[in-house]
Structure formats: structure tokens, C-alpha cells
């Protein structure tokens, strides 16, 4: 069986889900046997490659860069997974959603002309941080803040073996 082409992506999130992924520890060896990491914050690859079998996306869609990437990734990846609460619900980044974008940026940057209001050196901040499925169809949802390594493995292992993952009960706990 050829190795599964896996990518992981980091949007508006704290990277906790990626840390939890690294917590797979010795299970990463089995992962490496069955999969190849073709794009990830932990791999130095600039362009999202074509023909990705599985992509785990951490974080909410918070700015124009995320939006652009997500639309590209959806075209290139077969299985798209909302990885962790920010990707599933908006979670912590969505705290700003009840407030006007301008007010948030001005408060954070402590200036009347903050970056992110328009496209510039930093991407334009979207009016609200969105869960992935508000933008593109999502194949699987892996909730948790962050999902524990055990939960990630319970989800990932069936996919590596060519089966369908099915999380239920306590494995669906938010937070």
C-alpha cells in the first residue's frame, strides 16, 4: 500500500492541537510507516502540494490568508478534517466575533490605524473568526481543546488503515 499523503495546517489557533499531535510519541513511528507528511508547520514546505490524501486543519478561519488557503486546500485534499475546537466551532478566536473588527484591532495594536484593517503587510482580518465548515465542506470533525493524543490516534489510525473513523461519546467532548 502506498504511503498516505498527509498535511497539517495551522490557521487561527494556538498550535495546541499540533502539540497534542506530537504527543502521539511512539505512535508517530507507526504514523511514519504508513504516512508521509507532505505539508505542515513542522515541515519546511512553502506550497501546499497537489494530491493530498488527508489534511488536518487546526484553527478558525480568521483572516484573508486563511480563507484563500482553505479554498485552495479543499481543491487539493481528498479528506479534510476540522482538527480541534477552533476549527470545529471557532472557539477562542471567535471570542472577538460579537465585537466590531475595527474596535478589536485598535485595542490590540493601541493605535487608531492598526494593521489588518485592509490588505497590507499582514492579511486583512475577517469580520468574524469562522469554523471551517462555514466556508468549505468538512469531511470529519475532531473536537477537543486540544484533542488528546489518544483521541487523535483513535481518529487517525483507522484512516491510516484505510477504514472510516467514528468518534462517539466522551471522544466528542468540546473544551
Amino acid at each position: 500500500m502506498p504511503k498516505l499523503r498527509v498535511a497539517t495546517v495551522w490557521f487561527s489557533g494556538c498550535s495546541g492541537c499540533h502539540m497534542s499531535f506530537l504527543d502521539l510519541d511512539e505512535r508517530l513511528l507507526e504514523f511514519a510507516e504508513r504516512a508521509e507528511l507532505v505539508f505542515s508547520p513542522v515541515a519546511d514546505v512553502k506550497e501546499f502540494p497537489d494530491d493530498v490524501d488527508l489534511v488536518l486543519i487546526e484553527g478558525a478561519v480568521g483572516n484573508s490568508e486563511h480563507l484563500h488557503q482553505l479554498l485552495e486546500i479543499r481543491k487539493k485534499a481528498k479528506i479534510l478534517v476540522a482538527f480541534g475546537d477552533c476549527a470545529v466551532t471557532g472557539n477562542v478566536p471567535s471570542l472577538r466575533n460579537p465585537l466590531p473588527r475595527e474596535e478589536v484591532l485598535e485595542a490590540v495594536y493601541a493605535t487608531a490605524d492598526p494593521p489588518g484593517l485592509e490588505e497590507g503587510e499582514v492579511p486583512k482580518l475577517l469580520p468574524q473568526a469562522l469554523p471551517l465548515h462555514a466556508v468549505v465542506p468538512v469531511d470529519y470533525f475532531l473536537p477537543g481543546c486540544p484533542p488528546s493524543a489518544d483521541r487523535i490516534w483513535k481518529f487517525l489510525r483507522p484512516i491510516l488503515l484505510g477504514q472510516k473513523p467514528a468518534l462517539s461519546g466522551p471522544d466528542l467532548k468540546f473544551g
Partner: protein
Amino acid sequence: MINLTIDGMKVQAEEGETILQAAKRAGIRLPTLCYLEGLSPRGACRLCLVEVRNWGGRLVPSCATPVQEGMDIVANSPRLRELRRTILEMIFAERNHICAFCVSNGHCELQDLAMELGMDHVQLPYRWPLLPVDLSHEKYGIDHNRCVLCGRCVRACAEVEGAMTWGFSGRGIFTLVEADLGDPWGKSTTCTGCGKCVQACPTGALFEKGKATSEQVKRPEIIVEVTERRPRA
């Protein structure tokens, strides 16, 4: 005794009992949120909906519907699972229920229901309303972002404590639970500070100040413990 059928099982119940009580005794689990033993039923959340087959498949809240002779009830079916999940999603989408930084994370009835009903995401668009948090009370706080409008606090305050501090203001999704006539909770002249509302609250909407998330475990069962110790009116 009244004879009825729940999910094909023959069940007997006393006159005046609700479908929920009869189901519970028969060992049939129904999800509930606004229902709390010791308080009057309200039928506010609709999560305990059941289908009465011989009423043309009509849906009724089991917590607020008395049993009747010959009722043929469906308590669990794909249709009901779908309806309950949609109702739950509506509750999640209506306010800012963000588990990761909630004082009730890990011991919240809403969070538990999401797991029980297999809700892995909310398909409905979130509203993200801007809602206040009132920390004016000496011992407790109210976070309207977490409120599901079940009214358990309102009923606990009126029916058990007899203070009638809590009430609803506004309508529909704009409803708020408010003390007295909308004063800050800390200014309330009727609140006795007993904390029954906090214990009755299923989510992190009402909480004790100065307690960390792990200590913020509520005891809604105290409502029935308190009421059982005194004769019913």
C-alpha cells in the same frame, strides 16, 4: 394505574405522573435540560420530546405531559435523534457556548448532552451575540453568554427559596434572566444569597466567584433534597 407503551415496552404509571417519570422507572433514558427533579416542569428546552404514535405521531415534551391510558410512545428513533440534535444545535448557536474557557467545562449538562447526542459540530450558523456578564453579587456571577434560558434558576428561586428574585425579561432569543426588575444582581433587595439558582443551573451561566473550573461542580440534586424534607403544599 395507567397502562402505556414506551418503545414497545409495556409500562405502568400512576395517574398524574409524566411520561418522563414513567420512562425513567422503566429504565428508558431521555435527554433533559430544563427539567430538574424537585421543580415544576416547564417544557422549555424540548430536548425530552417524544412521539405519541396513536396521536398521529404528535411530538410532546415528556417532562410536562401526563401519562394517559393506552398511549403508544416512541422515546428513541432516528427522527427523534435528528430533532434532538437540531434543538441542541440551536441552543449552541444561539449564544456563546465556548467550552474551552467556561467555568463549567467538564461538568456541564449542555456539554454532556452534546456528547450523548453525538453532536460533533454545529451545522447552524452561530449568532455570536454581545451579552453582558454581571459580577455585582458578592458571592456569585451570571454570564448571559452561557445561559440556555431553561428557567431552572427562576423556578428554584420562586418554588424552593420563595424569594422570586429571578425572572425573564425580553422575548425569544433576546430573553435575559434578570434579578428583580433588571437591577444588577448585587443590588437585589429580594435575593437571600442562598445559591440554589447556582446549584440548579445546568451550564456555566450561574457560578460561584473565587472557584476554579475544577471546583465549580454543581449539585442540582440539592433542590430535590431540600424539597423532600418538607411537606408539599
